[in-house]
């Protein structure tokens, strides 16, 4: 083991000396990928094995990542890397398959809903074909199933079901001993994602109760109600997992809070760009100094640092543009920024900030 580490360190050092780069293996990528795109070293490649339609606007992509990919736990997500018109884009998606599929067959699935106007989701739907190769990062995220001592309630909305499908599969496989309930909110019956998987689970495991609730079948929408929660036995003791649009997440958090459930019992994960906190535009904005570029610009309102930098003609590295992937993380050398997801105000000193969700509050200096 030690010998391997020493050897790889030495190889890495030598690679840096000879090839002038931190990832020497990727030096050969331009040649090797011309022969087989799966030989890329710069990121982990995955080949699209097949694509299936879940609903009119949702597809599941079955992917075969390179064997060096590190695997995942149910409920985690990963970043997908694709090039569209010469530009690399990174977006975060939940894994919808169970880890067992990866361990047994080397396959994973991503279930992606078309977002109106979304560049990447539409590209995945319209352009990606089986046989194509896309890039992946390792999985991350702490939306993980509990260790089997407590009953569980899942509350999902729309395509927020995707990490939960992975979790339900895994829990069923491991014969989770406590009752599991799923409240799944969809607009109409044709919007149900993974219907067959859910029905199979329900028929096979008596401890799993499934409630699919349609919200938009009548003139007045029917959202999460107190009756829905009343119908869940032993609610107070459950571990609760939330994934869905912000409206549903907020409503559920509020109602569960009123019933005295503790924060530790609630687990939630991202699903779509979280709606930004409404920042009062009077105290945001300010002069932004890009010290490495010798450039200073003024900003007003709730424009984030990434947009400010781009408007100033800079092209900082970036990914998801929604505060998840950390590709745009950059050193702030001074000044105060507001996190537009949480509304939290930073300290005034030097620290790393995510450009895409940081809004200046007064003058800010960045090492960019």
């Amino acid at each position: 083991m030690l010998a391997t580490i020493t050897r790889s360190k030495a190889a890495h050092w030598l690679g840096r000396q000879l090839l002038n780069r931190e990832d020497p293996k990727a030096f050969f990528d331009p040649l090797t990928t011309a022969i087989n795109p799966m030989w890329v070293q710069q990121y982990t490649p995955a080949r699209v094995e097949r694509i299936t339609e879940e609903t009119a606007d949702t597809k599941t992509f079955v992917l075969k990542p390179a064997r060096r990919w590190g695997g995942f736990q149910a409920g985690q997500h990963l970043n997908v890397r694709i090039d569209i018109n010469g530009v690399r884009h990174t977006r975060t998606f939940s894994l919808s398959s169970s880890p067992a599929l990866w361990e047994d067959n080397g396959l994973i699935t991503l279930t992606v809903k078309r977002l109106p106007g979304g560049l990447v989701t539409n590209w995945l739907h319209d352009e990606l074909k089986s046989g194509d190769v896309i890039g992946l990062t390792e999985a991350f995220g702490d939306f993980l199933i509990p260790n089997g001592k407590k009953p569980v309630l899942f509350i999902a909305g729309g395509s927020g079901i995707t990490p939960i499908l992975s979790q339900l599969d895994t829990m069923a496989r491991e014969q989770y001993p406590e009752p599991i309930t799923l409240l799944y909110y969809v607009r109409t019956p044709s919007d149900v994602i993974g219907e067959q998987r859910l029905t199979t689970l329900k028929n096979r495991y008596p401890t799993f109760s499934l409630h699919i609730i349609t919200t938009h079948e009548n003139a007045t929408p029917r959202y999460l109600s107190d009756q829905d929660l009343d119908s869940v036995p032993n609610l107070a003791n459950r571990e609760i997992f939330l994934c869905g649009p912000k409206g549903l997440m907020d409503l559920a958090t509020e109602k569960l809070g009123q019933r005295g459930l503790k924060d530790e019992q609630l687990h939630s994960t991202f699903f779509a760009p979280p709606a930004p906190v409404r920042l009062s535009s009077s105290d945001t904005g300010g002069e932004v100094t890009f010290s490495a570029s010798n450039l200073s610009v003024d900003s007003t309102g709730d424009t984030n640092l990434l947009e400010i930098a781009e408007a100033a003609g800079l092209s900082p590295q970036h990914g998801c543009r929604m505060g998840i992937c950390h590709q745009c993380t950059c050193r702030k050398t001074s000044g105060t920024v507001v996190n537009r997801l949480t509304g939290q105000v930073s300290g005034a000193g030097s620290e790393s900030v995510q450009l895409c969700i940081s809004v200046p509050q007064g003058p800010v200096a960045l090492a960019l």
Partner: protein
Amino acid sequence: MNTLNEQQLNELQTDLDAIRDEVLADLGERDATHIRNMVRLHRKLEIGGRVLMPFGFIPPVFLAATASLGLAKILENMEIGHNVMHGQYDWMNDPSLNSQTYEWDTACSSESWRRTHNFEHHTYTNVIGKDRDYGYAVLRLSNDEPWRPRHTFQVLNYAALSVLFQWGVALHELEAEKLSNGKSHLKEKRAFLKLAAKKAGRQAFKDYIFFPALTLPVAPIVLAGNAGANLIRNLWSSTVIFCGHFTQDAETFTEEEAEGESKGHWYLRQLTGSSNFTGGKWLHIMSGHLSFQIEHHVFPDLPAHRYPEISEKVQTVCRKHGIHYNTGSFAKQYGTVLKRILRYSLPERITRRPAVA
């Protein structure tokens, strides 16, 4: 210097900004494909050169290997490294083509290059005393700089600078001339020297120790071939760069002229302080499109392979504003560079004739 009034300068800025915006709006697959093709070609040339070099005991193979490695270094330095470090491909969001992290195959560290070239040279282009690229502090190329006896044989300095070009560039930030006249102290340069030694050491280790040692029985051949490849690159890159700013009609400026200038005036200075040379597609690629030095100086962060098509529009703008567009064949432009080096090796009173500079 060509004089335009404030309104004309504003108009010049508007005209050039329009060309720039048009390209920016059109960036995409085509540009990505170009730079990736260049990177792929570089890998082929470099690997080909390194693999063939040990067989250099066969003379034609030695020539092929040295040429291949030399071309690899030229392509990597000029069309890839220089242009990537200008941020020409940052919009691609590809970490291997990012201006801030790219490290090139030459003795000068990218960090030092970005400071001295991207900032100093591109901001203060041809401003005597501010743009240290103007004559590299060893050549007198304008009467704005007082004549000293040491300038008499500066053509020899020029030859030495060309042969050792990568080392000259690597030590550029040391500002040796300021050290010798006491304007700066070695102590302030400690951080730079550490960085320079690390990068230069890495380059020397690779070409002059590692690869020769790897093929020990033929080490002298590999050493000679690697040195030859570096020499080819040094001579070519120095020649291209000299043709960019030191041709007969390339203008120089005083600090007062550039002080507090408008963007329009900066554009004018870039247009008149730079010079192009003509040639075919591969001559342009091998010079990193610095054969379109004028376009490069006006738009340093637009992908360089766009310069040929932008050139037409830039010439139209120049004609409109009565600005001289300095271009000619490679031989003609280089001839005027040599003339300039010779001419300014002598004091003004000897060479005085109707104003050129």
